[in-house]
Structure formats: structure tokens, C-alpha cells
């Protein structure tokens, strides 16, 4: 299950990376984004809210997705799963804020931005379950019930809580 989830999340992160790359390209090239609601994407992409301290939010998204991909491709450990979760939490929070701006400040919706927000939300759900339901400890009967790293399948070794004794 963990492996399938990781694969699905990889696909989602690559999709998000694609969307963010496209929006970053559009931002810097000065071409209008392909949009099914007239000029609403253009409105969103050229609004004051499209930048944070001069950095286009599309680029921030791009960096975010690269970082998420990094944590997904890193060795599957407790820390990397936690890192994915942290990044997707930030991603969802920021996407939520931007969607709020789209709806209430810009009064226009950009489907690219919404699709990125949806991908980010799915990634958060994935990262949350992956972290919480991550591999549990194995107990080694041969060692009187003490769990031991070497007895675990290789992929789980790093997750182990070392016995306190």
C-alpha cells in the first residue's frame, strides 16, 4: 500500500510540477495563459497577488513541487515522509490563501491555479496517510521481544524505534 501510495503521489507531484512550470513560463514570457473563461487567467496571473516580494507565486509553486518530489524520491523513511507532509501542508495553506484572493479580491478564477490547489490537497491527504500509517515497529521474538533493526525488511529498517533497554 505504501509503495502504491508513493507512486500515486509521485504522479501527482509531477502533474503539479507541470502546471507550475507552465504558469511560470507564461509569467516570464508575457504570453496569455490558455484559459476557458475568457481573460480570467490573465487577470489572476497579472494581479498584485501573483507575486510575493517580487517572486511570482507560480515560481514558488514550482520550487514547492520540486521539493515535494525530492522528499518522495528520497529513501522512504520516517523523516522523508514527515518532510513531504510539512511541504504539502504549506502548499495547501498557501493555495488556499491564493484561491481566497482569486475569489474575493480578483473576482476571477484561473483553472490552472485551481488544478494546482486540488493536486496539492490530494498530495496532503496522501502525505498525511503515508506518515500516519507508515510501517509500524517489528518485534523480534528471538531477542526476547526487543525490536531490532537488522531483523526488519530493508525498507523499514530506518523507521525503527530503538529499544530503550
Amino acid at each position: 500500500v505504501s509503495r502504491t501510495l508513493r507512486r500515486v503521489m509521485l504522479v501527482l507531484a509531477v502533474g503539479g510540477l507541470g502546471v507550475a512550470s507552465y504558469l511560470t513560463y507564461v509569467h516570464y514570457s508575457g504570453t496569455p495563459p490558455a484559459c476557458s473563461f475568457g481573460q480570467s487567467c490573465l487577470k489572476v496571473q497579472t494581479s498584485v497577488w501573483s507575486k510575493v516580494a517580487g517572486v511570482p507565486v507560480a515560481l514558488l509553486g514550482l520550487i514547492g513541487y520540486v521539493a515535494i518530489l525530492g522528499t518522495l524520491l528520497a529513501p522512504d523513511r520516517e523523516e522523508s515522509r514527515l518532510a513531504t507532509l510539512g511541504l504539502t501542508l504549506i502548499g495547501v495553506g498557501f493555495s488556499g490563501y491564493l484561491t481566497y484572493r482569486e475569489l474575493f479580491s480578483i473576482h476571477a478564477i484561473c483553472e490552472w491555479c485551481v488544478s494546482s490547489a486540488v493536486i496539492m490537497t490530494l498530495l496532503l491527504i496522501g502525505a498525511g496517510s503515508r506518515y500516519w500509517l507508515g510501517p509500524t515497529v517489528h518485534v523480534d521474538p528471538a531477542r526476547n521481544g526487543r525490536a531490532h533493526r537488522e531483523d526488519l525488511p530493508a525498507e523499514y529498517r530506518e523507521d525503527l524505534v530503538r529499544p530503550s533497554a
Partner: protein
Amino acid sequence: MASRTKQKEQARARRLAEERARLEREQRARRLRMLAGVVVAAVAVIVVVIVISVSGSSPTAGPAPGTAGAKHEAATVNSLLAGIPQSGQTVGSPSAPVTIIEYGDLECPICRDFALGSETQLISHDVRAGKVKLVYKSFESATPNPSTFTTQQAAAYAAGLQGKAWNYILLFYHEQGTEGSGYVNASYLGKLARQIPGLNYSQWQSQLGNSSLISRVRTEEQQGVTGSFGGTPTIILQGPKGQTNPVSGSIPYSSLEAGIKEVS
């Protein structure tokens, strides 16, 4: 014997189960602690980004018309344009070899950046020297709804009927409100007009609903859509050597200078 072995085995199984339960409890508690930490950190990051986003966007709004700050802005705009010929949507000598066309949205903050920055330099140097004339056209970007857009742009063109379009356009940019806050209304548009010296207010007001001005805004808007403009402002330079491709964004003055050389 058998029962002793059995007892031993049972005890061992119990120990195993207890150990496993203890480790799982520890793991859950540890994960919960980490989770709380990550949530707090994520919230902190988001709050910082939002604060930067909000503070970064507010300076794009100018002083509201009618305030003391607005008086200063009006003086700046009116002295910048004083003595330069204007006709309709054009500022600059009719015989200027280079024409720069700007497609803009009066509510667009990037247009404001451009107007207060490179465009001001362009007017005080090249337009004043008679080398360049500037033509303003309309393309909707930041304005929340099309009817407000048409009204506000046509209000500037109405000032143009008295040779004051550029005073109106630049005043609008200087006293622009916060994007999307719905600050543009009849009173706002009227206050801008009142700050223009030499503008006949009632004559301007009578031209507000002028259908030929409104249809001009719509035609220009359509040109922008057909030309797939990437936003506002979109700039096109025309000169004896031809014309440049439309470029969008707050273009630096140095790029404008390079463009002027290219077409003249």
C-alpha cells in the same frame, strides 16, 4: 513439564505482545508530537508569506482623490504634462518620428508601476523633446468587471475630447486604489476630473456616456484579445524602420530606449 513449557511460551507471547504494544504506543505518541510540530511550522511559514504578500501589495495603491496626498500627485502629473501637446488619446508632438502605443487597464497595478516609473521618464525626456508620441489604448486585465472597465476607460477618453486624456490617465494611476476593492465609481471618476486644471467639468461629465468613446474602448479591447496580449501594459513601438512585437509588463526605461533606437 509440558505445562511448564506451555507456561513459559505463554509468558513469552505475553511479553512480546506487551513489547509490541509499548513500541506502537511510543511510535504513535512520537508521530503525534512531530505532526503537531510540523503543523505549527507550516502555519508559521504560511502566515509569514501572507504577511509579505499583503504588505507587498498595499503600496501599489495611491492616495485617494480628494486627500492631501492626492493634491501632491495631481501637481506632479500636471507639471509633467504641462506644455506638451495632446490630442485625443495621444500625448506628444504629432510630427514625432516614433509612436509608442500602450494598451492598459487603469485599475492594473503593473500599469501603475509602468506609468510612475519608465513612462514618466519617457514623457519628461523623449515625449517632451518631440522625439516620441504616446498613444493610450484599452485592454482589460485587473478591472473586476467589463462594464466598470468600459466606463472608466471612456472617462479618460472623455477628458481627451478636451485634450486632457493623459492628465486623466496618469492621475488615475497615481491615485489608484487597491486592486479588486471596487473603488471605481462615479464619485471617484469625478474627483479625478476635478483635479485637472483647464478641464471643463460639466462638459467632461456630459461626454461620459458617449457611445463612440465606449465603442472605441471595446474595439481596442478586441484588438488585444486578437493579438493575444499577455497582460497589461502591452507596449508596441512604431517608427520609420517598422514596429516591434507587443511586449507586456512594466518595461524598464532602458528597454524602451533600446526599442526607440531599433525603430528609428
